[in-house]
């Protein structure tokens, strides 16, 4: 392992790679700071530039954009009150008041260093947990994988909007799109309607860029007046602010419990398929407020209100990378794009990825570490660039990016057909946005469709008994959490008002303990006992209080 790590260090620390990562982090910081420009969009647009690079260089650059984007959102949030990305919404609650109270340098310092420590914490977990999770992943048979994909899709659908049915439809549509073209198992053309190009199906990236980036830009242009105005009014933002690094480091480390709790929340949220920084920053803020001795100070510019969301959202990135690298399941749109990048370089993420491609896997770990150090260095520089970029009107930016999308998509396979795919899915994405369909499930459906079909086919080839989906512990585990994830929107809506919500978590814990009891060894059944005991305790506590409900958090959880 040490040898691999040293080799990864030498690759990541090469001058060319460092330069690419610095450009990536800078681009991410700026893109993250611009409202309407999500991190996913920045990563999607970076991808075409990485086609000609080596896998290490390409992925390092994209990780740079990812980390930069997560930290960039705090700049606009603190200086203008408008969060750059959904991942930094909660940062604005206390960051903006602190900056308005004459401490913008400290506010930025707290944000930057919380992001740094949260990211480094998750990087440590990434290095230690991803290989272990991959070992667990090796236990998975095709039945378990199929159920895992089902879980990833149901949780994405349930977290991605107000309307669960629309989320489910989007996920199923994504799966259907993935079936178009030649069947991977038998080589039979499907839904090609006699069109030769359709027989090869759709390459994932033009579909993703069309559905996500193209439609996002068109939505940003919808308001004709706003499209002609500068991106945001950042003229009042003082670019000569000196970030108070030392004071911020001291303050962040003095609040280490908050930092640790928020980072753990961030990593856990990232590990879950579909849950990203937009959720973790609000969850961490809520928990920090509940744990605080002075919750009334939240919202007035308290340091804890900045530390919690910023450490959580950067920690989420590490969590999402853990799932992608260990199991080959993307945690969100950003990691879906990274998965696409790996596929371009003929690397198939799976539980054997870390052992089979250890050089690349460890290079990703190292790049994730390094990106946080570069982010600290580039924050002050990008503060000035950010104000310059915000003067550009959206219609200029969108027109140029749309043309760039077409060039980037063409570069993938050197065929014009991919640009037509981009165009068609740009329309589909835009129409779906207008009709209130979330796009995250459709994108995950497209990415995971082949995985689901392949594993279903393999499982039926091994044994036609469908009961294996229930009798195998991991498969049952994922099916149980899928069912509960479908019920999550109703739970979230009724929480604090309906008595049945008090039983939701205990029943979930009791249910997931069943497959744990079915697993071999001692540790997992013991965890099952612990879960069952905790479930009984929660039920007893609710019964003792007469099943009285009390309002909990006031922030709803949903995807970007």
């Amino acid at each position, binding site marked *: 392992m040490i040898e691999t790590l040293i080799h990864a260090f030498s690759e990541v620390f090469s001058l060319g790679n460092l330069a690419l990562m610095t450009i990536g982090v800078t681009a991410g910081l700026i893109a993250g700071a611009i409202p309407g420009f999500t991190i996913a969009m920045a990563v999607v647009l970076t991808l075409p530039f990485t086609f000609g690079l080596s896998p290490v260089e390409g992925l390092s650059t994209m990780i740079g954009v990812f980390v930069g984007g997560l930290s960039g959102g705090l700049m606009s949030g603190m200086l203008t009150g408008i969060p750059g990305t959904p991942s930094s919404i909660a940062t604005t609650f206390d960051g903006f008041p602190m900056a308005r109270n004459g401490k913008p340098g400290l506010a930025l310092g707290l944000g930057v260093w919380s992001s740094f420590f949260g990211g480094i914490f998750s990087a440590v977990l990434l290095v230690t947990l991803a290989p272990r999770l991959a070992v667990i992943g090796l236990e998975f048979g095709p039945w378990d994988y199929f159920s895992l994909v089902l879980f990833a899709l149901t949780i994405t659908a349930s977290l991605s909007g107000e309307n669960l049915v629309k989320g489910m439809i989007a996920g199923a549509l994504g799966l*259907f799109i993935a079936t178009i073209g030649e069947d991977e198992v038998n080589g039979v053309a499907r*839904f090609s309607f006699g069109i030769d190009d359709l027989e090869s199906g759709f390459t994932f990236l033009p579909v993703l860029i069309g559905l996500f980036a193209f439609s996002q830009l068109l939505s940003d242009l919808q308001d004709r007046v706003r*499209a002609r105005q500068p991106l945001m009014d950042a003229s009042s933002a003082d670019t000569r602010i000196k970030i108070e690094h030392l004071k911020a480091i001291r303050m962040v480390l003095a609040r280490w419990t908050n930092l640790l709790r928020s980072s753990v929340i961030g990593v856990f949220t990232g590990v879950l398929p579909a849950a990203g920084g937009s959720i973790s920053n609000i969850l961490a803020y809520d928990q920090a407020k509940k744990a605080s001795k002075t919750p009334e100070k939240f919202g007035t510019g308290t340091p804890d209100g900045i530390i919690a969301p910023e450490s959580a959202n950067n920690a989420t990135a590490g969590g999402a990378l853990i799932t992608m690298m260990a199991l080959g399941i993307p945690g969100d749109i950003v990691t879906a794009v990274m998965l696409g990048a790996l596929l371009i370089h003929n690397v198939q993420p799976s539980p054997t990825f870390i052992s089979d491609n250890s050089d690349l896997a460890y290079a990703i770990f190292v790049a994730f570490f390094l990106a946080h150090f570069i982010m600290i260095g580039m924050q002050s520089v990008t503060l000035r660039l950010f104000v310059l970029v915000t003067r550009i009107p959206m219609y200029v930016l969108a*027109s140029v990016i749309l043309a760039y999308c077409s060039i980037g998509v063409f570069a993938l396979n050197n065929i014009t057909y991919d*640009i037509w795919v981009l*165009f068609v899915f740009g329309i589909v994405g835009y129409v779906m946005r207008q009709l209130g369909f979330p796009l995250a499930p459709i994108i995950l459906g497209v990415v995971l469709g082949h995985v689901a*079909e392949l594993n*279903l086919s393999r499982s039926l080839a091994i044994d036609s008994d469908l009961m294996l989906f229930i009798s195998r512990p991991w498969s049952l585990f994922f099916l149980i959490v899928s069912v509960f994830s479908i019920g999550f929107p109703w739970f979230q809506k009724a929480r604090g008002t309906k008595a049945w919500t008090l039983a939701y978590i205990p029943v979930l814990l009791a249910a997931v303990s069943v497959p744990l009891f079915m697993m071999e060894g001692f540790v997992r059944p013991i965890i099952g006992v612990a879960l069952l005991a905790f479930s009984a305790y929660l039920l007893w506590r609710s019964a003792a209080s007469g099943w009285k409900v009390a309002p909990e958090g006031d922030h709803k959880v949903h995807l970007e």
Partner: protein
Amino acid sequence: MARLNRDTLVALLLLVFCGVMISASLEIEETNYGTMPSSVWPQAVLGVLTVFCLALLGQSIVKAPAPAPEENTKSGGIGRYRNAITVYVLFFLFLLTMPYLGMLIGGVGFVFLSLTLLGEPELKRAPVHLAISIGTIGLMWGIFTFGLGVLLPDGELLQLN
């Protein structure tokens, strides 16, 4: 008659789509090899999709239609989508003319026309828009052609490759 709920219409259209695709899935070739026929997975997905569409239809009928947002009535139907339609039409033309104009000229034309039609309709802005389109597309074309070694389509008009 009550106004037709938008979701009802969407659900009905999706159901028609499912019907057409299920019918197309019956045409998928049956092979005498492989355990799972090629039509099983798409049919399962379409079956699930149909159930969800029926759920959306039921939900949209049961749920009272929400009052139309004020901005919709103010901006007047399709006018809201003017920018989007403009860009799609221009992009379509850009794609259609690509074999003749190529990526460089077509790209410059697309960006210039987009900027002109989406931005302030003033003649004095035309040179600025032209400069932006030549500068940005030229730069990207250069990066991809010379930096990344991608042979972008040059078109019949300007054969560079």
